[in-house]
């Protein structure tokens, strides 16, 4: 069966059925024919028996007539033989197998029996015939002739019957053939019907299969259509012959009927080259995967990830995913991570530096304190005094350094007051001008308008100075201009608005965003978290120096990063500027071109409405030292270095000093003798009980005398707290003798004035 071709194989059972039917029909037809022939033959031999018997009857009759004409022994013998032959035929009709059929015919048996009955009589007549007497044959002849009608009837009946049989046979044969033909026709019909049924069933199955395939195809097509990835099929000539909706959205082609475009239309030159190389690879039957630069109908280039599979009939299928947005997001994320990393680094460095700075201040306090005492003592020994002055100068630099560290690390909390930027800038300009030597030129352009911001004048001043010094250094001693300009700018002004959009509000700290504008020009933005004001005060420090490269710009706000020679820069200048500006809720923009110069803009939010300027601390009295012999001071400081230094200075200027190492001890001492002390000088940051706490307890116990805070972290005590506790004076650590003296003298002066008032009120007569 396997050797058969598929259609034959399907119809094998049908073929077998046809063969079986044909063989059966042929065998049946042959058997019918044989039976019919045999029957017919039997009958014909029977007929022949009768006909032959009649022939022999005639022979015998002829022989007797011959004898009567010519009576002779030979003729008689011949007659004898003819009669015997005739006789031999009669029993055959009656008894033989061949005669079975004709014996059934009416008149055969009775007639033959009559003839047989006559035979012995005829034999007797024959014996009486003599050669001598011809007439002796007459009885035999007559008797023989009597048989004539019997034979006539028999022959006629048999021949008629034979004719009938023959016709019947013929009819039967014809009927057989007709029946055979009919059977064949029926068989053919059945075969056709079965074939048709089989065929119909097969067609129905095929139709059902095709329907199922169509359905699967429709589902697949729907899936392809709804796919988020662009799918496009190109024919062997590279023309688009199918594409889904997503593909058209990718290429920005609204008209989906506009097929037959070449695949090159959808790729940039570079993308086309990449794809050609990919498709020409040796294993070209496998899908190619890679990134391509696509091109939209509008002509913009997009980043695509593509899977390209060859089609069996030629051409290829491309599955495309747009990576442009994802790549941009990835770039943004990388940038944010870098920025966050930098912020965290700065934060860590800031915390470390802030901690160091605080302890360092106490050390400096001791150096300053004892140094200044020593300087005073050595007034008559100029050589040693110069050495001490060197120590104090170095300590001064150390103090500035610590201040810078505390600024960028934002451990320094500046006083918040209304600051007039113009005034601060003019003051800074005066100082900057001194530090910028020729041949460089220093210019200022400060708006006469009052620009009020909330913040610390000292810090702003320091920031401006830092920028001016950097600008000076950028000139590298060459001829050039450093320019300080101050103006007012709206927050929705072009580039400022851009700043707000481009630099996301940082989660914790300021973030630096560097943007290359060209090969040589770079811009940087820094913005702190805070509400966006309507206006900024813009302080611009610009130079026409060497400019800042992109690489440096990315790092220049980092603490301890410097491009200056060792010993010349601390790497804290811009870090402290950043600290100051972000503490003020401001922003910085830098625009620099290599070889042309740099412009730094400090943007500080302008006050919405006029805030009355807070009265600064009481004016320190400078003048003749007053006698402090009766001034009894209680000094509280947990740090023995700083405490001892301050105690030494106080004693030096004539005060009587009692020293306590903690607030609890001080309370105990005062509790014993509340009126004993004219003044309490206390450190601010102390364990268990701070200076402010101590002041609070003292005021609760009705201690009305002045309290002075001496601290490196004066910003930790707000003006409100100081006002509430009646703390008028402060001493900033590290301190010099003159600074301490100024405070003590001011208090002494106030006390003296009070005493005279009291005296006057007590003794009005004297007034």
């Amino acid at each position, binding site marked *: 069966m396997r050797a058969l071709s598929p259609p034959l194989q399907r119809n094998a059972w049908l073929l077998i059925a046809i063969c079986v039917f044909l063989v059966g029909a042929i065998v049946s037809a042959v058997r019918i024919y044989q039976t019919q022939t045999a029957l017919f*033959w039997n009958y014909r031999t029977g007929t022949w028996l009768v006909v032959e018997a009649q022939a*022999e009857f005639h022979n015998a009759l002829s022989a007797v007539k011959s004898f009567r004409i010519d009576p002779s022994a030979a003729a008689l013998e011949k007659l004898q033989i003819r009669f015997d032959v005739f006789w*031999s035929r009669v029993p*055959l009709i009656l*008894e033989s*197998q*061949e005669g079975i059929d004709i014996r059934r015919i009416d008149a055969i048996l009775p007639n033959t029996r009559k003839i047989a009955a006559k035979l012995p009589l005829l034999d007797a007549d024959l014996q009486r015939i003599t050669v001598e007497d011809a007439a002796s044959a007459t009885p035999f002849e007559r008797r023989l002739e009597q048989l004539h009608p019997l034979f006539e009837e028999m022959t006629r009946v048999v021949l008629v019957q034979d004719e009938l049989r023959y016709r019947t046979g013929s009819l039967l044969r014809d009927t057989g053939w007709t029946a055979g033909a009919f059977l064949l026709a029926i068989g053919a019909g059945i075969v056709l019907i079965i074939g048709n049924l089989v065929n119909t069933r097969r067609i129905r199955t095929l139709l059902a299969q095709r329907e199922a395939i169509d359905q699967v195809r429709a589902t697949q097509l729907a899936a392809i259509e709804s796919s988020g990835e662009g799918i496009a099929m190109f024919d062997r000539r590279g023309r688009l012959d199918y594409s889904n909706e997503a593909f058209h959205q990718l290429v920005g082609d609204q008209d989906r009927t506009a097929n037959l475009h070449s695949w090159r239309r959808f790729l940039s030159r570079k993308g086309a080259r990449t794809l050609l190389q990919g498709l020409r690879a040796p294993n070209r039957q496998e899908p190619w995967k890679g990134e391509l630069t696509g091109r939209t109908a509008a002509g913009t280039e997009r980043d695509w990830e593509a899977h390209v599979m060859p089609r069996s009939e030629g051409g290829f299928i491309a599955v495309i995913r747009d990576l442009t947005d994802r790549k941009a997001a990835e770039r943004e994320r990388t940038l944010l991570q870098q920025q966050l990393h930098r912020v965290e680094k700065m934060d860590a460095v800031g915390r470390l530096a802030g901690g160091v700075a605080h302890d360092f201040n106490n050390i400096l306090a001791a150096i300053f304190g004892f140094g200044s005492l020593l300087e005073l003592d050595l007034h008559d020994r100029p050589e040693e005094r110069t050495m001490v002055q060197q120590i104090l100068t170095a300590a001064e630099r150390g103090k500035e350094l610590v201040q810078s560290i505390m600024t960028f690390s934002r451990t320094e909390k500046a006083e918040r007051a209304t600051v007039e930027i113009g005034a601060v800038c003019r003051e800074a300009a005066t100082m900057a001008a001194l530090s910028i030597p020729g041949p460089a030129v220093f210019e200022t352009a400060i708006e006469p308008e009052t620009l009020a911001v909330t913040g610390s004048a000292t810090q702003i001043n320091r920031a401006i100075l830092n920028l001016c010094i950097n600008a000076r250094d950028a000139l590298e001693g060459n001829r050039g201009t450093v320019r300080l300009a101050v103006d007012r700018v709206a927050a929705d002004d072009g580039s400022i608005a851009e700043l707000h959009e481009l630099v996301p509000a940082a989660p914790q700290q300021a973030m630096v965003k560097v943007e290359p504008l060209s090969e040589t020009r770079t811009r940087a933005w820094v913005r702190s978290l805070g509400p966006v004001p309507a206006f900024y005060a813009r302080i611009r420090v610009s130079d026409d120096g060497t400019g800042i490269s992109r690489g440096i710009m990315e790092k220049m706000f980092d603490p301890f990063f410097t491009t200056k020679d060792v010993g010349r820069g601390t790497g804290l200048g811009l870090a402290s500027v950043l600290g100051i500006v972000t503490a003020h809720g401001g922003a910085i923009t830098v625009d620099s071109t290599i070889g042309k110069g740099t412009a730094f803009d400090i943007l500080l939010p302008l006050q919405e409405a006029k805030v009355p300027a807070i009265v600064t601390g009481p004016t320190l009295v400078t003048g003749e030292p007053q006698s402090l012999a009766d001034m009894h001071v209680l000094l509280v400081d947990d740090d023995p270095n700083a405490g001892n230094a301050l105690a030494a200075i106080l004693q030096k200027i004539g005060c009587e000093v009692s020293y306590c190492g903690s607030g609890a001890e001080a309370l105990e001492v005062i509790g014993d003798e509340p009126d004993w002390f004219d003044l309490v000088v206390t450190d601010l940051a102390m364990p268990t009980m701070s200076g402010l706490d101590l002041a609070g307890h003292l005021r609760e116990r009705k201690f009305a005398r002045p309290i002075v805070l001496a601290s490196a972290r004066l910003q930790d005590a707000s003006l409100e707290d100081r006002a509430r506790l009646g703390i008028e004076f402060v001493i900033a650590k590290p301190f010099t003798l003159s600074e301490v003296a100024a405070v003590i003298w001011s208090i002494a002066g106030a006390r003296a004035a009070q005493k005279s008032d009291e005296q006057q009120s007590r003794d009005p007569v004297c007034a």
Partner: protein
Amino acid sequence: MHPVKLLFSALALFCLSAAPSSATEAPTGPALLTISGAIGVTNQGDTLVLDKRAVEAMEMSTVKTETPWTEGLVTFEGIPLKALLDLAGAKGRTIHAVALNDYAVDVPVDDAVDHRVIVAYRMNGEIMRIRDKGPLWLIYPLTDDPSLQNEATHSKMIWQIKALEIR
């Protein structure tokens, strides 16, 4: 060959040829069967004529068979056709048999060898008269050999034989 053996062979041939000599003698009674044509032995002109005496002198063989023309199993006794042909020294391939009523049929000589065909003379022990389809009837052993049960054989079973012509 050895001379003694040769002598015995000659004697044997003589004895064999001497036996049928009585059958081939010129007939004395009325002719029962006349054999003519390609034959080597004659006794009356070109023919070999056998009378009743000559036939009865010959060795008989028996065949028991049924026929379409007789009732039941019949015992036929007669001369084997082969012996008759040998007697006549027949050289042809066909026997043209003729009956008393001049009905004739051709019988192949090979049938005499292939089948035990006899020229029957007696039926059930009785000499057959002309009215019993005698005196001679060519009988094939139909019952013993069913392959002979066909129309062709039936037509060759000629009765009331009067002459055989060897062709």
